[in-house]
């Protein structure tokens, strides 16, 4: 019985997709890639984690080196600005 049904379904004149459908899809994925990071960067776990580690290192370096470069009244103003900023960030982190 299943052979009958298979034969019937295969006898149907199924339509074909347009010949340019594959080309349209290729163009669509190329466009997506152009508008963001290269796919090899996002798709490859090694490069993805390396990118995340690099960003984290830059952030930590900025936090450590930034205050050392500041002197005088500018440093005080900067520190008085940093503490509330850190508080807001910590609150946001705890809440999320």
């Amino acid at each position: 019985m299943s052979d009958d049904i298979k034969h019937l379904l295969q006898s149907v004149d199924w339509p074909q997709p347009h010949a340019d459908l594959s080309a349209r899809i290729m163009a669509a994925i190329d466009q997506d890639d152009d508008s963001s990071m290269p796919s090899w960067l996002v798709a490859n776990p090694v490069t993805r984690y390396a990118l995340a580690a690099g960003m984290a290192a830059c952030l930590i370096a900025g936090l450590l080196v930034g205050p050392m470069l500041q002197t005088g009244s500018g440093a005080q103003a900067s520190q008085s600005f940093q503490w509330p900023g850190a508080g807001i960030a910590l609150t946001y982190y705890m809440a999320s």
Partner: protein
Amino acid sequence: MREPKKHTTEDDQMCMAAIATGNTRAFKAVMDAYMNDVFRYSYSLLGDAARAEDTAQETFTRLWTHGRSWSPKGRLKSWLLKIAHNLSIDEIRRNRGHVTIDDVGPVLVDGAASPRANLTRAESAAIVKKALFTLPERQRAALMLVHYNDRTNIEAAEIMDVSVDALESLLARGRRTLRGALAGERTNLLDE
């Protein structure tokens, strides 16, 4: 369009590993291998070539963006058919009441057979197609997955997100309904 070369499981695994690194040639190879299957399955649910093309495009775009979530344990064709199935069902729900079958008229088939035989074959194909589209979409999906795309009952149940028992029930009802619809059109079709 010529039928593409069949991909083996090893071909699929190699291509998917390459796609994960952004290899567009591997992506094109997978698309060439499975485009017809994905398109025809979507068409069999939607009954509209333009919407089936949109579904196929979205299916392969998801393969490109989410290909890393494919498990090498499963068959790639089943994974693609599952995406196409879900997209087609969503499309049907959005356009409930607008399912039509386009291009069901008889089409002459090239070949060595006589014009009379060709006409009969084309007429028969059109009758089968029309009868198929009288089935509820779940029965149609079950028949297409198992009898046209050669999925096992377990794979088809997984694609449709139903139990194997439910799939077997859909298959039995689908076969019965299709035979009933064809019996009303032409009694000798099933005996050809």
